[in-house]
C-alpha cells in the first residue's frame, strides 16, 4: 500500500506552512494567524490518526527521503520512521498542539495580547520541529530538530521580551539545555564515527552495529564495546537530561514559566520536555545494551522525581507547582525506562501529556479567571464560580497524584512495579524505587494543596470574588483533556490484566509490535531480551507483588492528599510551610541549585574563560598581529625595491639572472 505513509511528511510540513502563513500574513488575518495554526494542527492530527490506524493495520514505514551529504563512509539523510512508538507520539503531539492552539484563542486573543502573529508563527514552528523530531529516522536528523525545538522554546518563553524576567528565563532555558545538547552533539558524532551509521532502525542501524560489536567483543579507543556503548549512551543522555529537565539540568524549567501558560502546556506536555524522554524511548534498543546506562537513567530519574516533588511542596505560584511536578513526573518516566519498563515509561509519557496539558491549560483558565494573578494565596473559592475549570482541573490533579482510577495511577503504578521487581534483585534499583515511592507522597500532597488553595475555601482577593468569565474555546480543550485524563489509563490496565488474566494490556501489545508485521528490533520484548535484567517477586508471587506495590503507591498518594486536605481544605488556610523552619528556606531556594550553577559559572567557568581569553589575546592575537606586522614590514621592503630608477632595475634584473645561473649551474653541475 502506497497511500498513508506517502503523506507522512505532511504531518510535519503543515505546521511549517502555518508558521510561514502566520509570519507573513498574520497581521491581516482574523485572529492573527490562529486559524492557520488550528487548521494545520488539525490536519496533522488527522494524518497522525491515519498513520496510527495504518500502523495498527500492520504496517511500519522506514524510508530515507533525501540524502543531503554523501560521503565515502557515512551518508547523512532525512528520512521517516513510523512505528508504533512514533505513531503514538505523533498523535499525542498533534492533539496537544491543536488543543493549545484552540485554547490560545481564549488565553491570548481574547486578552488583547500584542505580537500575536509572532506567537502563532512560533507555535507553528515549534509544532513542526517536534513532529519532525518524532518522525526522524536517524539520530542526526533527530538532533537537528531537537535543536530547533530548543530554539522555539527559547523564542516562546521569551515571548514577552519587554519584561525583565522573560528574556532572562528564555536565555537560561536556552543555555542550560544547550549545555546538555553539547554532550548530545558529541554523542551523535561519536556514534556516527564509531558505527558509520546514524539510523535508528533497520538492519544497518547503529543499534544493530553496536549489538554485533558487543557480540564480536570489539574494542574502541581502548574501551570494550559495552563500555564504549555506555559512554556513547551517556553522552546522548546529556541532551536528554537538559531537555527533559532532569537533575542537575532541571533549573531552567521553573523559570520557563515566564512564557505564556499555553506555551508551558505545550512545552511540558508534548514538545520540549517530552523530546528528551522520547529520544530515550526511540533509541531504547541502544540503551538496553548497556545495563550501566540503564541504572544511571533509573537512578537519575528516581532522584529527580523525589527531589523536584519536595520543592513543589512550598511553592505559592500555581505555575511553579506545576513546573516542579513536571520535573518530578519526567523523573518517573526516566525511572521507568531505566528499569527496562519501556512500556511503562511510554505509558506515563502519554498519560502525562494529557493530564499535564490539562493542568496547565486549567491553570491558564484560572489565571484568566483571576485577572492574571498567579499567587495561590490570593485565590480560593473558585470551585463554585467556575465548575468546568474546577472539575477538569480536579481530574488532572487526581491523575497527577496517581489516584485510582485516573490515568496517572496506572502508569505510575506500572513504573513502580517494574522498579520494585528489579530492585529486589539489585540494590541500586531499590534505592531508585524508594525515592520514586516516597515522591508519590509529596506529589499527592502538593497537588491537593494546589487544588485546595485555588478552588476551595473562601475567596482571598477581589479578583477571586469576581472572576473574569472564560469562553468555550477555553472550556472545550479542558473537557477533552479531562476525559482523557480520566480514561487514558484503560489502554494498559496491566495490574488488572495480570491479576485477572485478561488480555487488556493494549499498549504493551502495541509497543511490542503484535499488531504490526515484519517489525524487528524495535519491540518491547526484544528490548527486554537485550537488557536481560533479572527480576524477583515478593513472596515469589506476581499477584502479591502487584498488590503490594499498588497498595503502597496508592496509599502514599492518598496519605499526601489527606494531609493536604487537613491542612489546607479549610475556609481560611494559613501557610503551614512556615512550620518547616530552616527546611522551608532550603526548599524555597530550590536546594540552592541556582546558586550552585551561578557559582560554577562565575567561580569556575569565568576564570577559565579569562585564562583562555588571555591566551587568545596574547598568544593567538600576538601571532596574528605579528604576522601582519611582519607582512606589512616586508611589504615596505618590497616596495623599496622599486626605486623608479631604470638603471637600478637593469642591475637587479642582471643580478637576479646571474643568481639563477649560478644556483642552477652549481646544482646541475655545469661547471665541472
Amino acid at each position: 500500500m502506497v497511500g498513508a505513509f506517502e503523506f507522512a511528511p505532511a504531518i510535519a510540513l503543515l505546521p511549517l506552512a502555518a508558521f510561514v502563513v502566520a509570519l507573513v500574513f498574520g497581521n491581516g488575518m482574523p485572529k492573527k494567524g490562529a486559524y492557520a495554526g488550528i487548521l494545520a494542527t488539525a490536519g496533522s492530527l488527522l494524518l497522525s490518526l491515519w498513520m496510527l490506524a495504518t500502523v495498527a493495520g500492520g504496517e511500519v514505514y522506514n524510508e530515507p527521503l533525501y540524502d543531503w551529504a554523501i560521503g565515502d563512509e557515512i551518508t547523512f539523510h532525512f528520512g521517516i520512521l513510523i512505528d508504533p512508538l512514533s505513531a503514538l507520539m505523533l498523535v499525542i503531539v498533534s492533539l496537544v498542539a491543536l488543543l493549545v492552539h484552540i485554547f490560545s484563542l481564549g488565553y491570548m486573543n481574547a486578552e488583547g495580547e500584542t505580537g500575536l502573529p509572532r506567537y502563532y508563527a512560533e507555535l507553528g514552528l515549534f509544532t513542526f520541529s517536534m513532529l519532525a523530531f518524532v518522525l526522524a529516522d536517524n539520530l542526526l536528523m533527530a538532533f537537528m530538530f531537537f535543536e530547533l525545538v530548543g530554539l522555539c522554546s527559547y523564542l516562546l518563553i521569551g515571548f514577552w521580551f519587554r519584561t525583565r524576567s522573560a528574556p532572562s528565563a528564555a536565555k537560561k532555558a536556552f543555555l542550560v539545555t544547550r549545555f546538555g545538547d553539547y554532550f548530545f552533539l558529541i554523542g551523535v558524532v561519536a556514534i556516527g564515527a564509531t558505527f558509520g551509521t546514524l539510523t535508528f532502525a533497520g538492519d544497518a542501524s547503529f543499534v544493530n552495529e553496536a549489538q554485533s560489536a558487543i557480540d564480536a567483543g570489539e574494542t574502541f579507543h581502548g574501551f570494550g564495546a559495552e563500555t564504549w556503548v555506555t559512554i556513547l549512551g551517556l553522552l546522548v543522555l546529556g541532551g536528554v537530561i537538559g531537555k527533559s529537565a532532569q537533575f542537575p539540568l532541571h533549573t531552567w524549567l521553573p523559570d520557563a514559566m515566564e512564557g505564556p501558560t499555553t506555551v508551558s502546556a505545550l512545552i511540558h506536555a508534548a514538545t520540549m520536555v517530552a523530546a528528551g524522554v522520547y529520544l530515550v524511548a526511540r533509541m531504547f534498543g541502544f540503551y538496553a545494551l548497556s545495563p550501566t546506562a540503564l541504572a544511571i537513567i533509573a537512578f537519575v530519574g528516581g532522584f529527580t522525581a523525589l527531589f523536584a516533588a519536595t520543592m513543589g511542596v512550598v511553592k505559592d505560584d500555581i505555575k511553579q507547582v506545576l513546573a516542579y511536578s513536571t520535573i518530578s513526573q519526567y523523573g518517573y518516566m526516566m525511572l521507568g525506562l531505566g528499569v527496562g519498563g519501556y512500556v511503562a515509561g511510554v505509558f506515563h509519557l502519554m498519560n502525562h501529556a494529557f493530564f499535564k496539558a490539562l493542568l496547565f491549560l486549567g491553570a491558564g483558565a484560572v489565571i484568566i479567571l483571576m485577572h492574571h494573578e498567579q499567587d495561590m494565596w490570593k485565590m480560593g473559592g473558585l470551585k463554585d464560580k467556575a465548575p468546568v475549570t474546577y472539575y477538569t482541573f480536579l481530574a488532572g490533579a487526581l491523575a497527577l497524584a496517581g489516584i485510582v482510577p485516573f490515568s496517572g495511577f496506572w502508569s505510575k503504578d506500572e513504573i513502580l512495579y517494574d522498579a520494585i521487581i528489579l530492585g529486589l534483585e539489585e540494590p541500586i534499583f531499590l534505592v531508585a524505587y524508594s525515592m520514586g515511592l516516597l515522591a508519590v507522597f509529596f506529589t499527592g500532597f502538593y497537588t491537593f494543596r494546589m487544588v485546595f488553595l485555588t478552588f476551595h475555601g473562601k475567596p482571598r482577593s477581589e479578583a477571586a470574588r469576581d472572576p473574569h468569565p472564560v469562553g468555550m474555546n477555553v472550556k472545550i480543550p479542558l473537557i477533552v483533556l479531562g476525559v482523557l485524563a480520566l480514561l487514558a489509563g484503560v489502554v494498559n490496565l496491566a495490574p488488572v490484566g495480570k491479576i485477572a488474566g485478561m488480555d487488556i494490556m493494549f499498549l504493551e501489545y502495541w509497543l511490542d509490535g503484535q499488531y504490526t508485521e515484519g517489525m524487528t528490533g524495535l519491540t518491547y520484548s526484544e528490548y527486554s531480551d537485550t537488557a536481560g535484567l533479572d527480576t524477583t517477586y515478593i513472596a515469589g508471587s506476581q499477584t502479591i507483588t502487584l498488590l503490594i506495590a499498588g497498595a503502597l503507591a496508592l496509599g502514599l498518594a492518598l496519605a499526601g492528599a489527606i494531609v493536604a486536605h487537613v491542612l489546607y481544605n479549610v475556609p481560611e488556610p494559613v501557610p503551614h510551610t512556615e512550620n518547616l523552619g530552616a527546611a522551608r528556606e532550603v526548599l524555597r531556594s530550590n536546594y540552592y541549585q541556582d546558586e550552585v550553577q551561578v557559582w560554577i559559572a562565575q567561580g569556575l567557568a569565568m576564570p577559565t574563560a579569562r585564562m583562555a581569553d588571555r591566551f587568545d589575546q596574547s598568544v593567538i592575537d600576538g601571532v596574528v598581529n605579528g604576522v601582519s606586522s611582519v607582512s606589512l614590514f616586508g611589504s615596505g621592503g618590497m616596495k623599496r625595491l622599486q626605486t623608479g630608477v631604470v638603471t637600478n632595475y637593469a642591475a637587479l634584473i642582471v643580478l637576479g639572472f646571474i643568481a639563477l645561473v649560478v644556483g642552477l649551474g652549481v646544482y646541475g653541475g655545469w661547471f665541472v
Partner: protein
Amino acid sequence: MAVLEMPELTALAPPMILALTALVLFTYDSINPRSTNRPVIAGVAAVGSLASLAVAVWFILAGVGTPVAEGGNGVFDLFEGQLIVDQMALFFMIIVGVVTALVSIASYDYLRDHAYQAEYYSLVLLAATGMSTMAASNSLVTIFISLELASLPSFALVAILKSNRGSVEAGLKYFLIGALSSAIFVYGISLVYGATGHMQLDAIADNLGAAEEMNGLLGIGVLMLIGGFAYKTASVPFHFWAPEAYEGAPAPIAAFLSSASKAAGFVIAFRVFTTAFPLDVMQTLGIDWSLVFIVLAIVTMTVGNFAAATQNNVKRMLAYSSVGHAGYALIGLAGLTVDGGELVLGAAMMHLLVYGFMNTGAFLFVALAEYWGVGRTFEDYNGLSKQAPIACVALAVFMFSLAGIPPFGGFWSKYFLFTGALEAASANPWLLAVAAALVINSALSLYYYSRLVKAVWIEDPVLERESLSQPTGLYAAIVVAAVMTVLILPGFGPVADAAIGAAGAIIP
C-alpha cells in the same frame, strides 16, 4: 565538416583577422587622418577582435587542433612546424580575443578627448596579433618575432598619452627594460641554437642528445629564455617594468598588458618547455628547469603580493597583484613532472582565462575611475558605491575573484592549481612549499583586495562628489567581465576539460 577542407592557412584565422583589422584601421587613418570618428574606429576594432574570438571559439568547438585520433580535425602544422594550431593555441587565442574585445569596447569612452584614435586601436590590434601568433608559435624564431610584434606596439601604447609625463616616462622605462630582456632572450635563442643546431621546438627536443657536451651552454641559454618569458609575464626578477608601465599607461592598456600580454608570455613558456625541453631529458643533462620555476613561482607570488599589500595607489596595487598572479600561473610549469602534470598545467591555463576576465575588469574599473576623474588612491575611491552601485558590485566580484573566494571563477582556478600542486608533490616534495606559498599569499591578497571593496562600499567619501556619468562602453565591458567571472563557474566543467585537454595534448 567544412573546416576539414579548408586550406591549412585558414587555421591561423584568429590572428589573421586581428592583423587585417589593424590594416583596415591603418587604411582608414591614411584616407582620413586625424579622424576622431570614435564610433567607427572603436567599432571596427571591437568587431575585428570579436570576430577573431568567435572564430577561435568555433574552431575549438569544431575540433580544430584536436588530434584526429581523438576525433578532432587534427593539429595544423604550418610552414614546416614554424607555427602550430593546436588546442592550447586556440585556448590562448580565445583569451587574447576576449581581452582585446573588452579593451576595445572600454576604450571607446576612455579615449573621448584623444587625438590619436585610429593609431591607438591599430596598435592594440597589432599587439593582439602578435600575442595571438605567440600562441601558435612553434619555433624560437617565430616566438621571437611574434613576441616583438606584441612588444613594440605595447611600448607605444603605454606612452600614447603624449602630454602626460607619467605615461611617457612609463613608456620609456618599459622600452628600456624590454630592450634588455629581448637582448637576453635573443642571446638565449642563439645559445640554444648553438647547443642543438635547431630553432624549431620539436627539432630541438630531438637533438638534445647532441648537447650533452655543452650542457652548461644549453643551461645558460635555457635560463636566458626563461628571462625572456619572465619579462613578458612580469615575473621576478624581470617584473620591474610592470608597476611603472601599468601605472603610467592608460588604464585600458594596463588591462590589456596585464591580461593578454601576460597570457601570451605564458603560452610560449608552456610550449617551449613542454615541447623543446622535456623534463626527463633535461634532468639527465643537469638542467632541472622545474626547480627554477618553483623558485620563481614562490618568489614572484610573494614579491607581488607583499608589495601590493600596502600600496595606496589602486592601479599600482593591481599592477603588483598582477605580478602575484604571474606567480600563481608559474605553478603550471613548476608542477610539471617527468610523467604528468596536465592537471596543474591545465589549471594554470584556466587561471589565465579567468584572470583575463577578472583582471581586465578590475583595470577597466580603474579606467572608469580615471574617466570620472575621482583620483588614484584608495581614499579617492571611498563611497563610490553610492553613485555607481552596478560598477561597484562588479568591482567587488573582481576583487573577491582575484582573492580566490568562492563562488567566483578565481576560486576554482586557484583551487585546481592548489590540488594540482599537491598531486605533483608526490613526485617533487618542493611543490609542497609552492602550495603553501599559494595559500599564504592568497590569504594576504584578501587583505588588500578587500581594502578596495571596503573603500567603495563601506567608507564615506572624503569629498562630496557630483553625480557620476555612466559611460556605455566602459560599463558594458565591466559588466560583461563581471558576468563572465561569475558565469564561468557553472561553465567551469567544459572550460576545465578544454584546458586540461589542451595541456594533456602538449605534454609528451
